[in-house]
């Protein structure tokens, strides 16, 4: 497994504020990687260090084996970053913006690829429109295009779908997914946890500048709270033997019971049947990434690094 990005012992101090505290992890080539954490956790700082916009106070970052400081030319060629803030140059059209961006990366005639990116992001018709005249969502698409002009093996998207409508989100993800299938490594930070849950295969969580989780998605999902069983019953009181499993009651009259695994379900139903209680409705809830995320952010977990 080749390493696409290696963060080794990254710390960043702004005055007395410790934005990142000894963060180390790797992103493998071909990963679709999610970097999660609440606002102020250090995600954007970490990405800025990766892109050379910010210097780490200590530690090392490499992209495709190139150190972002010593070997900055190769490192920057290997990565395309979509910044979080909506930024653009009001002097130029979409096409000019992308041609300049190609030129900065040393690419002279890049129009075929630019056209392909424009088409994939639904921007073809806006190619000759001035950046000022675009809507926020369209500007966001151009920012994604700018990160892709030099066909970087590693693509980093810092909250690319913030303030973006559903249609674009889907176009964007279809395109990014395709790039991932073609072998690009994708790193994503997002506030929409369902996006991370749906798209990513590995997940890291940052909290107050520390790495608190780094796992394959399915492992992380299994780590969360066990499933729970929601029952609407003919009687309000549970049989004695089931009292211990009761977690709570919902406002609409469901009883919530612990369900460590599916085999427990049969036993619960049998107990209810023996007690002469009939089941009016039944639901099984599975923890999603959001529950796991909230749980991890609330409990003080030991740092992984």
């Amino acid at each position: 497994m080749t390493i696409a990005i290696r963060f080794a012992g990254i710390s960043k101090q702004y005055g007395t504020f410790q934005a990142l505290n000894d963060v180390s992890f790797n992103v493998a080539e071909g990963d679709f990687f999610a970097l999660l954490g609440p606002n102020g956790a250090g995600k954007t700082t970490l990405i800025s260090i990766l892109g050379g916009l910010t210097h780490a106070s200590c530690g090392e970052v490499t992209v495709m084996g190139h150190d972002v400081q010593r070997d900055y030319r190769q490192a920057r060629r290997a990565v395309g970053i979509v910044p979080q803030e909506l930024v653009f140059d009001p002097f130029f059209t979409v096409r000019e913006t992308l041609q300049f961006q190609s030129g900065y990366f040393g690419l002279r005639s890049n129009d075929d690829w630019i056209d392909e990116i424009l088409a994939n992001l639904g921007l073809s018709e806006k190619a000759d429109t001035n950046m000022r005249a675009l809507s926020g969502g369209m500007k966001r698409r151009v920012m994604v295009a700018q990160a892709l002009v030099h066909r970087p093996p590693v693509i980093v998207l810092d909250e690319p779908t913030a303030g973006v409508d559903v249609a674009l989100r889907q176009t964007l993800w279809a395109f990014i997914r395709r790039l991932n299938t073609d072998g690009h490594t994708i790193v994503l930070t997002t506030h929409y946890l369902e996006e991370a849950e749906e798209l990513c295969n590995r997940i890291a969580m940052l909290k107050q500048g520390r790495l608190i989780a780094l796992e394959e998605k399915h492992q992380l999902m299994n780590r969360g709270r066990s499933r729970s069983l929601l029952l609407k019953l003919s009687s309000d009181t549970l049989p004695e033997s089931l009292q211990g499993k009761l977690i709570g009651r919902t406002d609409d009259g469901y009883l919530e019971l612990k369900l460590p695994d599916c085999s427990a379900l049969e036993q619960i139903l049998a107990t209810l049947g023996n007690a002469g209680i009939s089941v009016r409705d039944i639901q099984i809830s599975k923890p999603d990434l959001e529950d796991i995320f909230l749980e991890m952010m609330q409990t003080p977990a030991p740092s992984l690094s």
Partner: protein
Amino acid sequence: MTGFYTLFYKEILRFWKVSFQTVAAPVLTSLLYLLVFAHVLDAHVEPYPGVRYTAFLIPGLAMMTLLQNAFANTSSSLIQSKITGNIVYILLPPLSHLEFFSAYVLAAMLRGLMVGTGVFIAALYFAIPSFAYPLWILAFALIGSATMAMLGIIAGIWAEKFDQLAAFQNFLIMPLTFLSGVFYSVHSLPAFWQQVSHANPVFYIIDGFRYGFFGVSDASPWLSLGVTGSCAVVLAAGTLRLLASGYKLRH
């Protein structure tokens, strides 16, 4: 080279797309100066023997406009990019600080030279100065525009708000260019102000430039070349150092 060339071209296009404001307007302003000062003073003042005031004023005005526009180009480009945030698109690509430096400086020099030439051509309507030593003219035009372009980079990087940039421009650049002998020969000043003028590097740029036209000047052109050349070298070293360190650009 493509990286440098692209950034250079972008910087040119940036001012050219608003050339009414960046090229035509300063030319017009200079012509207004020329119209007023020449009209009032032409009959009364003869700065050098045999040189009419209007002819004397033209190179100085052209150079002052050139200097101010070279400064304006780098400084306003950088502060705008910093404030709007699109500077990240220059910082993320693999551009070296040398490429960054040369692209910004050369584009600003080009704007300065274009505006200066514009002023000069338009001013020919009022008076035709002589061209004693064209190479001196060229040398000081290049050194002057480069110096101000570099000062503009420093100001643009240092300033965090338009307000701070305006302070740099109004409290440093304007006095330096205005009090450099654009409108008068420093020989006509009292001794004290002559001394003060000789401490102003911009005085040497204007004086040397004017020497190229008339073959007479307040200071020796070689002294002017020495002073302005050394200033330019020191500024270049300082600016490159700032850019290499990422001062106020990379945190």
